[in-house]
């Protein structure tokens, strides 16, 4: 789980120079990532972890916090 969180955080820091990532912070609401950015982020996760999110899983609730994304990845890989 911690590895996943680090991978996700590294991606965001790499993609968004100067971004301060707090895993407890809502990345959509705080504007860390924009609408197009989130789609790229989802693509990155799917490729990296060789998984595919279905339409029902692609909701704000699942992708607002790094921790909730990591949890979803973990569940899907189990």
């Amino acid at each position: 789980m911690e590895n996943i969180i680090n991978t996700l955080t590294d991606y965001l820091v790499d993609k968004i120079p100067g971004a301060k990532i707090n895993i407890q912070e809502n990345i959509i609401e705080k504007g860390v990532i924009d609408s197009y950015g989130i789609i790229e982020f989802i693509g990155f996760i799917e490729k990296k972890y060789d998984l595919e999110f279905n339409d029902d899983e692609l909701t704000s609730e699942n992708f607002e916090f790094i921790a909730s994304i990591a949890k979803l990845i973990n569940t899907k890989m189990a």
Partner: protein
Amino acid sequence: MPIPSRDIIVFTESENRWVIMNVFTRTSLGVNSEALKVLNLTSYHNINELQNLFGTDAFKVWEIEWFSNYKGLFADPTRYLRKYEDWPEPEVVDVMDLVLRLKKHYLIVDDEAQYRSCFASKTSLLDRKHFGNFHQQMGQELMVKHRESPEEWWVKQKFSGDKESIREGHYKAVQEYFLKSYFKSKFSEGNVIVDIGCGTGFYSNLMAETGAFVLGVDPHEEYIQSAKKKSIENARFETLQVGEIGAMDHIPTDSADYVFMSDALLFYFVPVLPKKENNIQTLLSDICRILKPEGCFINVEPHYIFWLLPWLGNSDRPFTILTEYIDKSFGVTPSISSLIQEYIKGGFAVTWMEELTPDPTFEATNQRAYHFAKQFPLWQLFELKPMSS
């Protein structure tokens, strides 16, 4: 106790098949006659009472809703399978499941205030709680559900596979049909035309065929690359951040006889992405500046009322339902007063207006689409002249 939404209409589709549609949310479900009785009784009985009333009764439902504009921006926007022959096999459900289906499609609601709060902008492409406007819904459908690039989809929905011609449908039967003869009657050799938001340059080339010189500009580099490949002799294309301050500074003042713009000004009223507003007056003052004093700005836009309204009724005798006009939560076109006020603030006077109707031969291709567009135009055209002239 669930409340039947006051926002619904019910109409028959074939023997013992009904469509229940929420005209605000644009969601629907196909049901049999027995299910309609449940819909009616949901206002008077809670779920336990409904279970007692209907016991193990079975109801037929058809999941017929789909995002029909995926077929195109001017495709049938009614969002359910129009031919009952195309409907899936019915699902047989009990009263509990029926109530859940009715809720899922917003045909009954549990909490009216909560339901109404859903009519707001989406906060992101992943936001499923708010309905958002048409552009946001389209973006979600393309980028989240189909993982398609909106730019590529736009070209695909407008042009045929070889990109050399416009696809069958309203773009061809209304817009191209009208513009072909309009351009011929309007433009001649020696005219200078600037086509703003030219996309892949299809109409720029059509204008250039009259002998006029055409400069096509668009902010999308990939569209301009495509336009350059198909460019005819007297058409030239440039990537240009239209609407940004200074973007058109290199186009000389008083140089154009005509400025043409189609299907682009609406984005200045409702931006595709929140916080990405463009300043319409920056654009209009640029247009005013580059036009010769006796020049003309021709603006063709999706109709300020009828585009995206449901195509209801018989295919040869359509009607529609209007749910919003001044404060649009779904629609993305400006009201007629806000559009004309912006033109005037930009220094223009309206000298002509037309509402575009289809090629009569289109009736044989798509009767419903033809009759709807004939009665309820899907585009309007304005001719505008700088007011000092």
